[in-house]
């Protein structure tokens, strides 16, 4: 059925939209920019900040363009005196209760509040009254909150509640004292927050940010006694370019490696290598569970936000989790054992840094179960800053390759970065190992794409393997609740963030669905162009088993590559 169309005028420009679409959408179509702060398409359409107001010509009424549906023949003014005055004063109100220490703010460069203020030409804040002051919440290793920079746009609240179903932070209090707080807790560290960092990617200011470790990493690099190795997660290579204003989906693997080398890392390895290793271990675990009547379905364990979510919200399902460490942690473990031994490096002098699209990885690196594996986990955003600080023009660097030994990987490892990727990689390997036959059609399209829940069944030997993929914790909750109601699977991939790691909380900001798609396409592009597309075919994987672990699931593998979990409660 064709959608009902509405014709209206934005600053006298005729424009047509679907019935139910907002004035803001119409303005976008008419090519008129309207500043917004709280607005986040489909996620946060509250009309809270009141900077997107426009004037309706017939009634002189001021309305919020983000929540007001377009009406037939509506005449909208986006730049009248009244509109300017209203927007400016509301902006002054916001700034009057904002900690305006822009020069030392982590969001100095990409602060939406600053951009909107500049757009409006704010040159004076006429209010000098009371400002709210609350302590910075530094209770987690992943993300921190500075309430004095919060403008109460509620984007974080909406993402946390509606996308992630975690509800770790909520609006609290009333009136001028209103704040966004961990619900019922003083600090984020005490709350069921999973540290996914989705809030930090939508925050328009520096109120919620990753905990930065760049200075510590610089210190390690400059310390000549230290041997510093770095690993790069699959999603970073398709996200990093955005930090340098390149188009989303630009692949910069080679430039990134070159930059890392120029920064002074002693070796630049790839998390992809341990992604392949993960497939070996996890695939083996799956086969074992199926064959030996183990707990099914098996849940993937690559996403630390997802793991923490399960530990808080569904502790009874911990047995379903794969005991495999995530690729980040496997890398740390391998680097500090296999690599260190092979190169006669004292473990104490080896510093393992990881570049992740993720804020929860920082927490994962500090988990009691495996706190020695990785020393510093940086986000894509932090790496971007380090490259800038080093004065490098990344987009014009000569491409370089990851260092060998821990740097060669299959396409299966690359697709770990997108939702469904781990599942697909595992299936490629499991199929061939179980059947002993070559997989003809290597792409598992059913588990690809941005659909929130994906289900598929795969025939392996005469067995129907039922699998499911969920990304975004709200979708994870749906699967878990389905299971409670009797739905049965063999293997389920869970990723905390929408889109998987490409949409991780440590990626460059503002990932709309369109951005996610472009990053995802880039990932599958890398896979498609690789000759090596199955983890078990990676020669360096074969080598490490030969030289070190003997076989997947061996005693040594268990000691170094597997871990345990804990029930956390709410």
């Amino acid at each position, binding site marked *: 059925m064709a959608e009902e169309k509405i014709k209206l005028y934005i600053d006298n420009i005729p424009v047509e939209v679907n019935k139910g679409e907002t004035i803001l959408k119409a303005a976008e179509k008419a090519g008129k920019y309207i500043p917004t702060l709280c607005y986040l398409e489909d996620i946060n359409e509250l009309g*809270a900040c*009141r900077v997107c107001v426009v004037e309706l010509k017939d009634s002189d009424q001021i309305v919020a363009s983000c929540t007001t*549906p377009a009406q037939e023949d509506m005449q909208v003014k986006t730049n009248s005196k009244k509109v300017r005055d*209203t927007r400016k004063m509301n902006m002054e*109100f*916001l700034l009057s*209760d904002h900690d305006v220490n822009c020069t030392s703010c982590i969001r100095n460069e990409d602060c939406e509040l600053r951009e909107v203020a500049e757009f409006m030409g704010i040159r004076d804040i006429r209010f000098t009254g009371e400002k709210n002051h609350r302590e910075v919440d530094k209770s987690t290793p992943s993300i921190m909150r500075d309430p004095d920079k919060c403008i*109460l746009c509620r984007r974080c609240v909406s993402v946390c509640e509606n996308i992630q179903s975690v509800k770790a932070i909520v609006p609290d209090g009333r*009136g001028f004292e*209103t704040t966004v707080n961990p619900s019922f807790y003083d600090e984020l560290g005490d709350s069921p927050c999973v540290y996914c960092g989705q809030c930090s990617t939508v925050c328009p200011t520096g109120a919620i940010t990753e905990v930065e470790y760049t200075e510590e990493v610089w210190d390690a690099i400059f310390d000549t006694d230290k041997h510093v190795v770095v690993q790069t997660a699959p999603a970073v290579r398709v996200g990093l370019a955005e930090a340098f204003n390149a188009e989303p989906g630009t692949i910069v693997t080679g430039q990134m490696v070159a930059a890392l080398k120029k920064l002074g890392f002693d070796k630049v390895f790839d998390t992809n290598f341990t992604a392949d290793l993960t497939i070996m271990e996890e695939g083996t675990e799956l086969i074992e569970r199926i064959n030996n009547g183990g707990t099914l379905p098996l849940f993937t364990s690559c996403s630390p936000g997802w793991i923490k979510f399960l530990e808080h919200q569904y502790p009874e399902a911990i047995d379903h989790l794969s005991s495999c460490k995530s690729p980040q942690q496997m890398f740390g473990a391998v680097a500090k054992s296999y690599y260190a031994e092979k190169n006669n490096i004292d473990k104490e002098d080896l510093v393992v840094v990881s570049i992740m699209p993720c804020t929860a990885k920082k927490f994962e690196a500090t988990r009691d179960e495996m706190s020695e594996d990785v020393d510093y986990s940086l986000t894509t955003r932090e790496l971007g800053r380090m490259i800038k600080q080093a004065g490098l023009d990344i987009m014009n660097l000569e491409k370089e390759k990851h260092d060998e030994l821990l740097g060669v990987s299959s396409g299966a490892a690359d697709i770990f970065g997108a939702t469904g990727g781990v599942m697909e990689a595992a299936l490629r390997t499991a199929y061939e190992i179980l059947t002993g036959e070559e997989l003809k059609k290597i792409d598992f399209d059913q588990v690809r794409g941005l659909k929130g829940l994906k289900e598929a069944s795969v025939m392996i030997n005469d067995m129907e393997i039922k699998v499911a993929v969920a990304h975004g914790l709200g979708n994870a909750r749906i699967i878990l609740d389905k299971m409670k109601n009797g739905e049965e699977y063999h293997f389920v991939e869970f990723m905390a963030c929408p889109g998987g790691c490409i949409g991780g909380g440590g990626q460059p900001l503002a990932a709309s669905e369109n951005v996610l798609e472009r990053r995802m396409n880039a990932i599958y592009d890398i896979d498609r162009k690789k000759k090596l597309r199955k983890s078990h075919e990676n020669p360096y994987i074969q080598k490490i088993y030969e030289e070190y672990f003997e076989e997947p699931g061996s005693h040594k593998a268990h000691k170094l590559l597997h871990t345990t979990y804990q029930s956390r409660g709410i």
Partner: protein
Amino acid sequence: MQAMEINRITSYDGFKDYKNYLGNVQKEEQATRILVGMGTCGIAAGAEEVHKAILDEIDKRNLKDIEITKTGCVGLCAKEPVIEIKQGDTSVLYGDVTPDRARELVNESIIEGNIIKEWEIGEDDSFFASQTRIVLENCGKIDPESLEEAVINNAYEGLAKAVSKMGQQEVIDELKDSKLRGRGGAGFPTGIKWQFAYDNDSDKKYVICNADEGDPGAFMDRSVLEGDPHKLLEGMAICGYAIGADEGYIYCRAEYPLAIKRLKKAINDAEELGLLGENILGSGFDFNISLRLGAGAFVCGEETALIASIEGQRGEPRPKPPFPAQSGLNGKPTIINNVETLSNVSDIISKGADWFTGFGTEDSPGTKVFALAGKIKNNGLVEIPMGTKLGEIIFDIGGGLENNGTFKAAQTGGPSGGCIPIEYLNVPIDYESLQELGTIMGSGGLIVMDEQTCMIDLAKYFVDFCKDESCGKCTPCRIGTTRMLEVLERISNGEGTLQDLDLLEEMGEVIQDSAFCGLGQTAPNPVMSTLRYFREEYEEHILDNYCEASRCASMFDSPCQNACPANVDVPLYIDFIRQGKYKQAYKVIQKENPLALICGRVCYNLCEGACNRNSIDEALAIRELKRFASDYVMKNEGGFPVPEVKEEKNKKVAVVGSGPSGLTTAFYLRKKGYDVTIFEALPVVGGMLAVGIPEYRLPKDLLNEEITVLTTMGVEIIVDTKVGEDITLKELKEQGFEALYMGVGAHQDRELNIEGKELDGVYSGVDILRDINLGKDLNMKNKKVAIVGGGNVAIDVARNMVRLGAEEVNVVYRRTLDDMPAHREEIEEAQYEQVKMNCLVNPVKIKGNNGQVQAIECVEIEGGEFDTSGRRKPKEIPGSNFTMEADVVVSAIGQNVECNFNCQEVEVEVNDSNLIETDEQLQTNLDWIFAGGDCVKGPSTVIESIKDGKDAAREIDMYLGGDGNIITEMDIERELSGPILEEEKPRVKMPTILLSERKRGFKEVEKGYSEDMAVEESRRCLRCDVEIK
């Protein structure tokens, strides 16, 4: 009434039968009935004790066949506890009932059958007579916990009719025809709203009653819930039937436990009888009502926030559209109406839309309930037809202001509304008229304010309220209200600027335009409307650092001093009296006011009006204490202290007129060292003090005592010298006077322009007072005197006439006694002296015989529209003429100033009212001539004239090169000399002479305090000056 066993009623006829049955039972049971008002307000006032006392007394007297019923509130909060005694056909309402009175009422009224008149509240009292009760019809009249009684009083009649005889659209059409508009605030037409919900197809719809009454001072919903819950339930059920909803919620604030209890019982009772629940009256229509308790967030009165709260979400508004009628509770079409709106529905359906539109105005039919609060006599709940004038509500129903205060403004709509100043008392109460004035109807809060309300303080209060109640979602409401409050606080702390007013206005507009919901959009209203009507008051705070109402604490030490035009440091001198240091006390007064003895007798003590003691018992007797200190020093300390004259300046200043204004200027200028000469036209010194104020209030020999202080200082006073006749302004200039102060009094009467004014026996009030004061022998023995006017001159003349032996003294005044401009105490004294006040009467003709006055023909007056002074305009009643015998008629309808000082080429500019024009520095068009007092402002009080005299001295000093500092500060530590008495203690009464003695002559009426009395009274001072600091 006896409850009877009855099963569920399953048909319309069944309902009718049941009602008939109840009616018959009631007729048989006609017994004596005592209704005790036991709403929350009644209970708070002690109704439970009264109820118990009645039961005990009936038990003790062994009385039979008396039914005691607990009812809701009848609305007259000022008189709670209220009881009604019904015997046969008579019914009497009693107010301010105590347990003792209740016992006496049982004996007197029930056993003896007498009515105790003095406790009775007459049903024809204007409080009730001017109301039209639809919503409140049964409140206080029935037992709210009895469904039977509700049914007898027409409950569920409308519902029965709707579900049995009407289609859904028919019900909605009836509502539309009735033009009922939402009583919760914005006044959206209820029928149209219902139509939207009806038109929206859905498997589920809801009806919500908004009973989250949160406006400060509003309690009409509570009264309905407590007094007549079935009316609301019925309205909701009719709404449910009309729109197709089967479920209803009442969202009631948890602070209303009694309302909740009664609602629960009402819902249960109605369900049991089949009037709610499944298959109502066999019609197939189901409707269940449940209660939801709100935790008291003001924003939950906003419909979408209320819905969020019912759903268990944070109480925050949601974007509209979609409107609740499209997508409300749980995303289903929902009607939200408030208690009052829904309580109108049953009568509209049972009696028809035509009946309803018979009340109120064309666009706003029906009635509106208001909660009258603030500085009003009859505070309480009133229901008036739409279109009633604001002034009628305040003065007819409300009985005018408490403590004879002067009306300043009324706030409607609570914190979302605005104020209406005195100029708009004629505004008809309807949605559009109020909106035009910048306020709203709101849910019906009506707060009356008097002159002691500071409008900045008021704005602060309401903005603070909204700031606290903001849900914090949108920027303008969350931060904007805080910023507004901060600016207001700045102004109230004396740190504001005129730019702040522009900023307030700009903020107000932005918040009104862009806040998310009604709470924020209306939050600036109190600021905007006070700025609109009282901008001068804001400016006074900013420019003069002055808060006339004594509310902005940083601007004054004590309210009494702040209220005193002469700025006398009252608490300080009261404290010296308390310590027995009377001379010190006098010096403190003299510092700011050289005429302490005079003001101790004739001042109209604005200070006492501002005294904080008023809220405990009664104002401190400040004037009496001032008089005591002056008298004591004069008699016992060798006369008044004479201030030291500073170094001689050898500059001459002339003062024209020796009234209070001229004397004051002369005093301060002489103290600074100027050569001052006062020119007085009359043979006596003192101006109006000498020839206007009667001897019995201010003995002339005492007047001279304070004038002697001036002459001792070296002020020269030349009497019998009229400037303009005996000496001209030009000549004064030539004689070397470098500056001149014009302090001429208003010695000329305004002419009474009616037939017969030329007859013998017609006098002018001012003339007659002057004659008497100058010792002219006027014999009024056996004469009937009529005095026209209601001002101070009229009353002074009247009281003089009593002393001159008049047989009958009639004051004829065209407005009401309360409207008389004369001072209250003077009017009361005159009445005590048997002066008759003929109010609402106007003379039309003086009749004579042989050139001699014989009678005065008058016409009766009724109050018409309100004028800008807040009084009703006199409107003659045609054909009501009558004749009043009179041998003497005195006209005292106002005074003028004689301006014959203007002659030769030196002309002082005079305006149309024949008053001198000055700038703010009291300077006239001629730079060396300054003017103040009566000749600039028209007839003024003594203390106002003193203020002008002081200001003039300051200005003249500066004009002549001085620093303008005319006050010599005293080095006194401001501290407590004894404990502060905060418990009630009556004011020490001023002793006066007897009536017989008053009739014999002009002896001073007030005898003055003894030393003991003065010290005792002084101990009542609350020393606000110390506390505030």
